């Protein structure tokens, strides 16, 4: 199910039982069961078995379940993919993706695993994490590399390191990468996710950064702590004014289509059919936030 609300995707270290146990309580849109950076090398094997059992037996109550596999420069990712697909994950997040061939390599292994474990062909989605200058340059070819691609996510830590850049609260150093990735995602028709915010105590800056990326057009953000989830969801929740305007737009466009009028005025603003997608997106976010129950 590629098209759904994904405001938050929280990383959960597969090595830590307490972390994977009750993440759904905080109602993230997705969990990312992590086999990569968070897991100590000596526990990679154990984390993979834990991943499989978690996917197979633990009920995340509708929260989408992604798996971040180990990098394609390791000898771990192939078995990670088999375990993830056998367990029934919704999708696989590929770290350090730099080119189309990275995605097709994983897509081929996923196809083989789907056959091996009797899962529906094509049912496992992919998401690419862009973490280097080359990845950002190749954003469009990565975004269009497979029909399994659901979205792309930016990883600021590795990106800034390789750019010799310093993270700032304003995010100036990330602006071009964010914009380029976003343009590639929109051109390819896939979703776009921002990097994690690492200062867990600085909620004010987290909110500012989320407001920035939401206004830029991002669909959501990767998350490292449950306490960031509600704050991010709040930013992505339409205001009453935005919700009412979206409802008025959809109602007016529906009526005008019946009467053959192409352009009309809603709440004092000129509106045409180009506004419909935006209005639908507002209602989708409002539904996800529980503030709209209608059926427009």
């Amino acid at each position: 199910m590629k098209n759904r609300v994904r405001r938050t995707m929280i990383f959960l270290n597969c090595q830590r039982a307490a972390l994977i146990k009750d993440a759904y309580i905080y109602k993230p849109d997705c969990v990312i069961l992590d086999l990569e950076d968070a897991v100590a090398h000596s526990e990679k094997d154990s984390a993979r078995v834990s991943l499989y059992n978690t996917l197979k037996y633990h009920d995340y109550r509708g929260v989408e379940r992604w798996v971040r596999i180990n990098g394609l420069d390791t000898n771990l990712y192939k078995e990670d993919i088999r375990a993830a697909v056998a367990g029934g994950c919704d999708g696989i997040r590929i770290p350090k993706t730099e080119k189309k061939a990275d995605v097709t390599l994983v897509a081929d292994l996923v196809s083989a695993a789907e056959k091996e474990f009797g899962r529906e062909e094509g049912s496992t989605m992919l998401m690419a994490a862009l973490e280097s200058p080359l990845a950002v340059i190749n954003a469009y070819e990565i975004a269009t590399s497979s029909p399994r691609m659901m979205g792309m996510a930016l990883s600021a830590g590795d990106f800034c390191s390789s750019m010799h850049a310093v993270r700032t609260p304003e995010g100036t150093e990330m602006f071009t990468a964010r914009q380029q990735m976003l343009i590639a995602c929109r051109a390819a028709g896939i979703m776009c996710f921002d990097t994690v915010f690492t200062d867990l105590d600085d909620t004010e800056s987290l909110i500012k950064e989320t407001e920035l990326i939401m206004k830029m057009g991002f669909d959501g953000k990767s998350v490292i702590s449950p306490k960031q989830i509600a704050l991010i969801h709040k930013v992505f929740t339409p205001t009453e004014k935005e919700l009412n305007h979206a409802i008025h737009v959809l109602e007016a466009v529906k009526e005008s289509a019946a009467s053959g009028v192409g352009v009309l005025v809603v709440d004092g603003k000129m509106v045409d059919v180009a506004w419909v997608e935006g209005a639908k997106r507002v209602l989708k976010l409002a539904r996800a936030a529980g503030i709209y129950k209608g059926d427009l």
Partner: protein
Amino acid sequence: MKLIKSAIAGTYESSDAFVRVEPAEGVKIDLESSVMDQYGDSILASVRDVLKNLDVSGVSVAITDKGALDCTLRARVETAIFRACDAMDNIPWGTKI
């Protein structure tokens, strides 16, 4: 599967379980749990189920459970068994586990 050495898996953290296995005659399970009264029987049933699925008939299992979910408990016992059999590179996803 036949154990060829002793092995451990898991931690003593809350919501986890620490498991030690070693080769033995028959199956012996020693369980210490913070939720023994409520879940002791179901924990033992899960451990026996894992051992049966993996065809393990000669093992001594010592478990210190700190309130682990069933999926965590199974994962820790399986990991310890696979490590004890030197079989971590050949895990039967989707069949015996």
